[in-house]
């Protein structure tokens, strides 16, 4: 199986400047390379050709988790295991820590990076829904500057993101100001058929904001695997405002299922996926609510 790899050049730039120069030099022959758990599999099994691998793991500042200035900041080459185990992430965005722990295996998570998971742009990516309901933003960097994109606007279609040639996903940042703090009350549920090592058949994340009376004032609902890109179920979100009765929760989940546009594929049928959206959304709403109720008031 190793003879399917056909790498002519491997470069490991040590500065941003070196990286951009390489990207310019190599053009379409260059492929950004981090954990390798997607790229190498694609090269071995899906015919991906990469003449030059540009390993970004040595670039300073591209890895690491910091909190401050009202933001939780995660460098793009931070590994999934570092994120799942990070006390900072578990505190500020528990749904993200829980989501990434569902990706692959421990071995995969010790190499796979959050930036790689996002840049791979699979609509089934487990990291995305929790990031969406946490109002995360992505910083994209190029030789000529930087731009910030809300995570839900990053994806264009299966395997395609808004990243331009010569552009790199640099950082994922999650707001943690007191105003945004209620988004911590979030949950991500995945149905994959197996306990582990499975791609999500459906993934649902929900975050909820409550008033003093315990009524929901804002909800965010994000769905994975049921559309060409991760989906914000805006209909469900609007329906969540108010007291979370069983009827309201059921209705919101039904709206999420309506908005989903799943396909039939080898892992499951569209109708089964719609059913799963209904069930998982109800459960995720209740799980997010339980998280809120178990959090001591500030």
């Amino acid at each position, binding site marked *: *199986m*190793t*003879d399917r*790899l*056909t*790498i*002519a*050049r*491997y470069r490991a730039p040590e500065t941003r400047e070196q990286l951009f120069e390489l990207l310019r030099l190599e053009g379409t022959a260059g492929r950004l390379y981090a954990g*390798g*758990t997607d790229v*190498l*599999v694609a090269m*071995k*099994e899906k015919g991906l050709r990469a003449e030059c*691998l540009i*390993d970004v793991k040595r670039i300073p500042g591209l890895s690491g988790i910091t909190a401050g200035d009202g933001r939780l900041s995660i460098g793009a080459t931070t590994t999934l*295991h570092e994120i799942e185990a990070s006390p900072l992430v578990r505190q500020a965005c528990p749904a993200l820590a829980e989501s990434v722990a569902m990706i*692959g*295996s*421990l*071995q*995969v998570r*010790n*190499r796979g990076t959050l930036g790689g998971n996002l840049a791979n742009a699979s609509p089934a990516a487990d990291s995305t829904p929790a990031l969406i309901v946490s109002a995360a933003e992505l910083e994209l960097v190029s030789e000529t500057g930087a731009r910030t994109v809300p995570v839900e606007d990053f994806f264009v279609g299966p395997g395609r993101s808004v990243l331009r040639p010569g552009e790199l996903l640099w950082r994922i940042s999650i707001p943690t100001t007191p105003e945004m703090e209620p988004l911590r009350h979030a949950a991500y549920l995945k149905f994959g058929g197996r*306990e*582990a*090592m499975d791609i999500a058949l459906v993934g649902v994340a929900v975050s909820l904001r409550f008033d003093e009376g315990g009524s929901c004032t804002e909800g965010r609902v994000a769905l994975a695997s049921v559309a060409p890109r991760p989906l914000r179920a805006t209909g469900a979100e609007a329906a969540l405002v108010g007291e979370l009765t069983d009827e309201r929760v059921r209705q919101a989940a039904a709206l999420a299922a309506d908005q989903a546009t799943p396909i039939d594929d080898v892992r499951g049928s569209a109708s089964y996926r719609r059913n799963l959206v209904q069930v998982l959304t109800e459960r995720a709403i209740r799980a997010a609510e339980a998280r809120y109720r178990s959090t001591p008031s500030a």
Partner: protein
Amino acid sequence: MTGGNRVTVKTQIALTINSTPYTVDSGLSQTLLGLLRDDLGLTGTKEGCGTGDCGACTVLLDGKPVNACLVLAVEASGTEVLTVEGLVVGGELDPIQSAFLAEGAVQCGFCTAGMLMVSKALLTENPTPTEPEVRQAIAGDLCRCTGYVRIVRAILRASEASAAGRGN
């Protein structure tokens, strides 16, 4: 590897494996797994799938369990690798190895190296794991023979033995 109509770009890699330094002329397209098995003849680590799904190729890379089939040999330059061949120290079996033997956790043995390496990493980081933690840790290791029960028991047994040893 065999020729075909491809040019194999060579590269030199210096790394430490089982506490021994190696300098290897390998290929740019070579994986760490291929370096261990084909370039160095360390065949204890197995290739089950080549795509990070089975865990048979698990080694410790700077202490962390990874699938060697998804690490390029050139990336392992300057690192410390521990393979199943490195578990025996001073002629003594590692507690995890003794536990696997005692519990009958080995049948065909093909998954064993991977299971041992991920278990070793688990017990180093978390010497007293719960059963769910053990199952979570080995979730990336497939076994077609044992049904996992004895493997989980062996890991818990090793953690108890180490705890007992430390209590002395």
